[in-house]
């Protein structure tokens, strides 16, 4: 029993860290740069499917399934997501903010259609299976494997966290915040708002793609139903709850919101009879929507919001 709880906890934390990585990416885009990404599920799916198509064990039924090494899949996933974000950014970043929201939402819908319909590449609604799990021959029990993967995820998320903290303190990061606060002033100082926005958007999307690759190589298969639009809203709720503009808030939000989601799911499946499963699932989603709206209305800073930074030269 305790072993059961312990191994569930390890699995749960792995998923939280995957989601935390996505939330860190969104925080770079929204929290620090003010870019509205409504296509998180799409970028995550691009990363996941790129990895799956490149690394899955060869199968004559499919175009992909190239059986390439794990690390190639991970790097290619990041590159593919970056390319998609760059293309969509080129078209929309110069326009008003909510057009980026509409266009990125469109990307997510289109990617979902491709994953469902282009069966030769993506396996359609069946998805792709037999995606190699890294070092699964060394860690051959499920618990040992999950523990090793948890260590891997902690390392990756820690690296991403410190790298983000570092670059956000750098001149590049300061320009991002300057643009977010007052674009005209930043432009007057000779900074290209477009270029910095595009860079932040692409970098954030790369983290989402990385998360996608790490998710499929943890689970070992990929299907379109892991990338439904609800994922986008969950990640937003994570960032808004945790506190946008604060990377620790992003990670905390991922933990809190995913706990709410998992707990409400468990509760619903206990209390709601299987004949009303659709209604039970609806309650879970309504909860996420309420969390999002109530947080915006009552505590827009989030649990731990952005720290006010005052220049040490102020008052000189």
């Amino acid at each position, binding site marked *: 029993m305790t072993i059961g709880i312990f191994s569930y906890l390890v699995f749960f934390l792995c998923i939280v860290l995957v989601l935390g990585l996505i939330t860190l990416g969104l925080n770079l885009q929204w929290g620090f740069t003010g870019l509205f990404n409504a296509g998180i599920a799409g970028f995550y799916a691009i990363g996941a499917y790129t990895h799956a198509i490149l690394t899955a064990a060869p199968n004559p039924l499919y175009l992909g399934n190239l059986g390439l090494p794990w690390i190639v899949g991970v790097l290619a996933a990041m590159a593919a997501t970056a390319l998609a974000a760059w293309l969509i950014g080129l078209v929309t970043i110069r326009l008003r903010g909510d057009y980026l929201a509409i266009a990125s939402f469109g990307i997510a819908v289109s990617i979902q259609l491709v994953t469902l319909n282009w069966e030769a590449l993506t396996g359609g609604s069946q998805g792709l299976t037999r995606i190699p799990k890294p070092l699964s021959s060394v860690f051959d029990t499920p618990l040992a494997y999950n523990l090793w993967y948890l260590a891997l995820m902690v390392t990756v998320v820690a690296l991403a966290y410190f790298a983000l903290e570092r670059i956000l303190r750098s001149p590049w990061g300061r320009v991002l915040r300057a643009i977010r606060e007052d674009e005209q002033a930043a432009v007057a100082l000779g900074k290209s708002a477009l270029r910095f926005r595009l860079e932040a958007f692409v970098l954030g999307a790369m983290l989402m793609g990385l998360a996608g690759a790490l998710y499929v190589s943890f689970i070992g298969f990929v299907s379109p139903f892991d990338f439904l639009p609800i994922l986008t809203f969950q990640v937003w709720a994570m960032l808004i709850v945790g506190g946008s503009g604060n990377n620790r808030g992003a990670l905390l939000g991922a933990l809190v919101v995913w706990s709410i989601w998992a707990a409400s799911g468990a509760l619903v499946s206990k209390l709601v009879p299987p004949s009303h499963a659709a209604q039970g699932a*609806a309650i879970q989603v309504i909860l996420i929507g309420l969390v999002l709206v109530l947080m915006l209305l009552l505590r827009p800073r989030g649990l731990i919001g952005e720290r006010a930074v005052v220049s040490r030269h102020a008052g000189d």
Partner: protein
Amino acid sequence: MIAQALFDGILTGAIIALGAIGVSFTLQIMRFANFAHSELLTWGAYLALVFVAFAGPGTPTGPLSFGWQLVAAAGFAAVLTGLLAWAVDAVVFRRLRKGGAHPLTMVFAAFGAALVLRHVVVLIWGHESRYYTRELQMAYEIVPGVRVLPDQIFILALAVLVVIALHLFLTYSRTGMAMRAMAESPPLAQICGIEVDAVIRTTWILGGALAALAGVFTGLTPQLHPEIGFNLLLALFAAAILGGTGSLPGAVVGGLLVGIAENVSLLWISPGYKQAMPFLLLLAVLLVRPQGIFAEKK
């Protein structure tokens, strides 16, 4: 083949246009993309279903599959959905607006509201498809190669009437003029003494009522399910932006273009990708003419 696709496109286009009018005016007057608007279509469709459940769809009138009751149901749904839109504004958007929230915070809230609205529909009515009426209809071949259901002609005619009425309202009534002034320039309209809150209220009620009609029409051809609005979301935005936001003719032409593009493209691409068509159209317009087809370049 192409003639049939054109007719089908005009029909879906008319429905999309009714939904897009509200999106377009919200984008222009309140300056935010209301992603919850598609859920007003769904709510309108289901509220009409409630009316039909009590009154029945009526005995088929002439070649139509329904009687006057369904028309009354559409009116009932339009009024209630208009009020629902206004209520959502009062509970969520007005508070954020008064608190000086960033327009993109409003978009976040809109997504949150959309999630709640859509899933309350699932909670009440479940996931199954539903029908207003089970009557079968004969399709008429009006032009060689174009088959049309009488219901579809009815929808098209009613949509045209509604748009004409709305055009007259916007052109000649004081409230209509105030709406257009707000759409042109909110600060300038405010200086001229236009009551901003009243205009915003009218915008919600009108947008909601039109969305309800679009929802009922979608449900009539041929079925309702909780995602009928959500599936049209991209089409609504594409139509609103294509024609240029804040303009009635813009939303109508945008709707027709999106509807026709969707249906004509089916001659070449698999129906699985149909939903991506409005998005591609939208990307093309944003790339070439982001202010929309009709708007003056600012």
